[in-house]
């Protein structure tokens, strides 16, 4: 009898595995497939952008055409046909929206199903949400309350129109257009994303969060996020992502730029749960993302925390440029790969200012036939006297068919800097599994518990609301990897 229940549960969980795999039937406005100058003009026009923005995009496009795809990451996939992608898809809005009540109920339902109610009364107190659906932001909550303290939280498409001075000053200042192939592409075709501005001396009174959803078939999502925190400001920003379960691969190439001025702090947390593809590796999101923060001011601090469980391929290195003296960069990461997933992720810490400090804690967990690589760079430039870095990379293997790799690059040009690197690789021990199971936990509960323990140092950096979700997600991602 016990065995029968277990079988039923197993069948259930294997079909329910990716619970965000549904898609929404909604009328959309799409640009024709493919990429050329006209498409870029189309996007810019749709967004009603000023000329300087269009020129910036066209310039990026010109440069992109001359660039080569990067091939140094330890991931493999068939060549992407950039002419076979839709670069703009937006839910058809009947007219300009004035309030949340006017948002298409289908869309509200979608977010409800994803566990992100956009109805402010029902929302988690203290979290403001910007919901990005395919190429556009469909709703941003709590804007008025935030504007009372001078915080700007809006879709970047609106910021381009309403706060051009800020956007112009900082866009591309942290991640240059030609930083890499995908940043140039993003600069040319980015459609939406979030914009955050924290004025001098303001501690943002609530967590800000963006929820990214790719819905349309064959559509790429190219969002762009820009966060600027003035002197003594503070913000904690959360980002979540999901996509429907589809057989073909979809591209997500985002750019995130953070700017921290004197004595300010930015805490950026991500729970990435894009559709990972099925057990055999069919379908899933290609997550090629460039995230970078610049500690421009003295005594500023940028902290990245990421829990990466989704995507067929992840290629992502949230980094910190530590320019200000005494500035601090942190990177806490959990990357889980199962089945045929591939992840090549890590960080770069570029020490430029004096007494700069960075900490890297990376936990990679591989199961199934997956590949999990940590790739990290610590650079201590001339003049960064007394710089400090501590790096710890731990890998955990589940089963015998997965692999983990650690690739650290250290460039040190200062004699009194101190760089420490520790790395371990372990397997979930049979002793640990047996011990937990003897207490009545099934193999999956036991694995999830051991893995969550392994990730503890990173999980404790996540804001409360996210930590619980992330813990569950770790359990779900590893389903079917043991027993």
């Amino acid at each position, binding site marked *: 009898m016990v065995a029968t229940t277990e079988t039923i549960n197993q069948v259930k969980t294997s079909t329910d595995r990716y619970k965000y795999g549904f898609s929404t039937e909604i009328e959309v406005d799409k640009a024709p497939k493919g990429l050329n100058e006209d498409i870029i003009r189309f996007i810019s026009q749709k967004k009603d952008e000023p000329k300087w923005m269009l020129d910036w995009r066209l310039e990026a496009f010109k440069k992109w055409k001359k660039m080569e795809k990067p091939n140094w990451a330890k991931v493999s996939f068939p060549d992407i046909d950039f002419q076979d992608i839709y670069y703009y898809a937006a839910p058809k809005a009947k007219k300009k929206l004035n309030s949340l009540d006017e948002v298409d109920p289908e869309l509200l339902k979608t977010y409800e199903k994803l566990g992100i109610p956009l109805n402010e009364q029902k929302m988690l107190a203290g979290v403001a949400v910007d919901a990005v659906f395919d190429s556009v932001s469909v709703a941003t909550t709590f804007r008025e309350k935030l504007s009372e303290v001078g915080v700007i939280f809006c879709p970047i498409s609106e910021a381009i129109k309403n706060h051009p001075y800020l956007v112009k000053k900082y866009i591309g200042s942290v991640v240059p257009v030609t930083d890499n192939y995908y940043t140039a592409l993003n600069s040319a075709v980015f459609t939406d994303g979030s914009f955050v501005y924290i004025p001098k001396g303001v501690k943002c009174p609530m967590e800000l969060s963006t929820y990214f959803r790719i819905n349309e078939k064959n559509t790429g999502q190219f969002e762009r996020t820009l966060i600027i925190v003035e002197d003594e400001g503070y913000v904690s920003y959360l980002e979540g992502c999901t996509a429907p379960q589809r057989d073909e691969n979809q591209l997500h190439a985002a750019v995130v730029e953070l700017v921290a001025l004197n004595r300010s702090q930015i805490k950026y947390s991500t729970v990435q749960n894009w559709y990972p593809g099925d057990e055999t590796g069919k379908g899933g999101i290609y997550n090629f993302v460039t995230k970078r923060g610049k500690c421009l001011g003295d005594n500023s601090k940028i902290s990245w925390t990421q829990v990466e469980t989704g995507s067929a391929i992840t290629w992502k290195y949230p980094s910190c440029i530590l320019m200000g003296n005494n500035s601090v960069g942190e990177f806490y990461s959990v990357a889980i790969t199962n089945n045929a997933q591939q992840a090549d992720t890590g960080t770069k810490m570029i020490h430029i200012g004096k007494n700069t400090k960075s900490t890297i804690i990376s936990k990679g967990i591989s199961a199934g036939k997956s590949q999990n690589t940590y790739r990290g760079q610590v650079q201590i430039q001339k003049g960064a006297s007394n710089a400090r870095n501590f790096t710890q990379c731990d890998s955990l293997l589940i089963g015998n068919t997965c692999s983990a790799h650690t690739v650290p690059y250290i460039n040190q040009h200062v004699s009194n800097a101190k760089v420490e690197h520790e790395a371990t690789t372990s397997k979930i021990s049979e002793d*640990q599994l047996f011990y*937990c199971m*003897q207490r009545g936990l099934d193999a999956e509960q036991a694995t999830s518990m*051991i893995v*969550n323990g392994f990730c503890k140092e990173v999980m404790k950096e996540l804001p409360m609301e996210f930590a619980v979700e992330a813990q569950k997600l770790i359990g779900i991602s590893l389903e079917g990897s043991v027993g």
Partner: protein
Amino acid sequence: MPMLEIKNAELSIDDKKILKGLSLNVNEGETHAIMGPNGSGKSTLSYMLAGRDGYELDNGSITFNNIDLIPLSPDERSNLGLFLAFQYPVELPGVSSTNFLREIFNSRKKYLGEDELTHLDFIKHLRKVAQNLSIKDEMLKRYVNYGFSGGEKKRFEILQMALLNPKISVLDETDSGLDVDALKIVSEGVNNLKDKKNAVIVITHYQRLLDYIKPDIVHIMSDGKIIKSGDADLALYIEKNGYSEILNEQN
């Protein structure tokens, strides 16, 4: 019908025969002691009972309340009420003891179709149980068995036993590494849990533990079999004369 019935258990590890036709019956309310020299197969017996991978029987049968245990996984056996206090409890780095205990406690409640306790109610319950075993709050904040002293590890095993309230408990060398004070605390813990409906199997080298946990029946195990059974006096006899005489008797 005995609660636990092991019949002619044969088991090999890496082609080496460890259990060679072991039989044992345990009834409700009984305390059994299994004694024997090193390498007689005592720990193998405990892993076999708990269903550890690689410890499957070649021949023989085990039933628990009339249920065939052989096809069941360790967690299924645990849910039926079988508990193993480990000789070497396993460390779980990063897993907080309190969370671990709550997880196993509520998971059992769920299996039994009973209401799970809220975090707060569980903490209250846990404090009470822990106090009886002289376990301080501070220890429960640490990671499971991580950096615990030998005595702390053994007390933590009995704490889990108290929370899960098993029908049959196998204590594998629970006395090893304990000083007299810790031995008393642990034994008292076990004795407090003992009632007419449950049973305990104590596996030990030494008679010492049996001063505190009084066995109804003592078995001598040697070379993968039980070669002699008797009452508590048998343990005292071993203490005085060693195993050799009984072993020679057999040969």
